[in-house]
């Protein structure tokens, strides 16, 4: 979707300010929101692409007016309701900071992450890479054009490269395709490439002639130049 999250190339957001000796978390609620999101993710009821899509549904003004872990909280609440793990009325009570005295039982059979399994779960090395023997459509050095796609669902094709010409820098192998995976439409495994876009191709003649942006894109995002 052409949402506020797709920020590359926007102006007016202000300076980048690095906080010296920044703590990992600034508030106790950030710790809990972070861990709740991870722990709930291990229930296996949604994938990471669905998580990103859920956060992208936050209304634009609210997205800009809130911080990272508030985006996470918004996404978590949305997924809990969508996947029918928590009724909307109970989530509404939580949003108002109220407890729920008699929560309805959740469905049985869910596997809950326990402390002894945390280290193993976090060290899992399999995520989005696939073993499927899918042939690549492109190879390093090929000229490509990023497709001009404007799906209303999730996509990892940023607006700022759509319709722009680039060159395949390297083939990373076969990965799950987030654009379908987020919608529950399957993994659609395909190759991911780092595509080099010259700064001038993206931003015009005022940009540096030397500089470039490398964007990781899937076969379905690309066509031959």
């Amino acid at each position, binding site marked *: 979707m052409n949402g506020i999250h797709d920020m590359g190339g926007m102006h007016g957001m202000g300076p980048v300010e690095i906080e010296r000796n920044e703590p990992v978390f600034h508030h106790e609620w950030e710790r809990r929101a972070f861990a709740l999101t991870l722990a709930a993710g291990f229930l296996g009821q949604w994938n990471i692409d669905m998580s990103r899509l859920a956060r992208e549904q936050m209304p634009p003004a609210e997205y800009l007016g809130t911080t990272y872990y508030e985006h996470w909280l918004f996404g978590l609440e949305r997924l809990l309701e969508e996947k029918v793990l928590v009724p909307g009325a109970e989530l509404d009570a939580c949003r108002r900071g109220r407890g729920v005295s008699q929560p309805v039982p959740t469905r049985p059979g869910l596997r809950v*992450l326990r402390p002894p399994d945390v280290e193993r779960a976090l060290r899992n090395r399999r995520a989005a890479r696939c073993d499927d023997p899918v042939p690549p459509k492109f190879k390093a050095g090929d000229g490509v054009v990023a497709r001009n796609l404007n799906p209303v669902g999730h996509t*990892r094709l940023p607006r700022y490269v759509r319709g722009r010409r680039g060159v395949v820098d390297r083939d990373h192998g076969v990965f799950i395709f987030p654009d379908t995976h987020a919608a529950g439409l399957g993994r659609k495994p395909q190759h991911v490439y780092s595509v080099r876009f010259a700064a001038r191709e993206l931003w015009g003649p005022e940009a540096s002639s030397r500089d470039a942006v490398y964007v990781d894109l899937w076969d379905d995002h690309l066509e031959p130049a």
Partner: protein
Amino acid sequence: MTEHDHDHEEGSPLAETALRVRALESLLADKGLVDPATLDALIDTYETKIGPRNGATVVARAWSDPAYKARLLADATSAIAELGYIGRQGEDMVALENTPKVHNMVVCTLCSCYPWPVLGLPPVWYKSAPYRSRAVIDPRGVLRELGVELADDVEVRVWDSTAELRYLVLPERPAGTEGWSEEGLARIVTRDSMIGVATIPSQTGKPAGGAG
């Protein structure tokens, strides 16, 4: 934005957010969907065990051992796993070498993807709208603001982490560190240099922390 009108005062919407998170945790625990002790373990992992010192160890090894550096640049996932750093948000890694002629920097314009096993959780500025919007269109301006002035003949490569690949910048080894141990070198490697928004200055003294 009635519920999220941030003014950062006491009793403000941030306090409301704290109540909201507490209520949600309580509800999910009551339903048996999360185990509060698991939350503690997850938080402890990223506050005390996984952070940018991991990445600094990788960089120091690459500076010290040419064969390791070659492996890191050829297959970062395996080379980083040799040092024990694997897992969530670092399942597939790519290392990018900064040189006098090429400066790499990393962003995630669409969310805030970041290589957790080697750098920990991302800092606020990396997740912020200013960095996500500007890194791709004005990398030299962002770098200048952050104190990195690049000559015109340096090529800037910005890597937008749009897929499940995570990028670690191998910064240039500064002058004055000849003969330093890996431990001494690791102490001068900063988080921001491994994102590509800082360089590491020349060293004039002995390595910090003793034996070096």
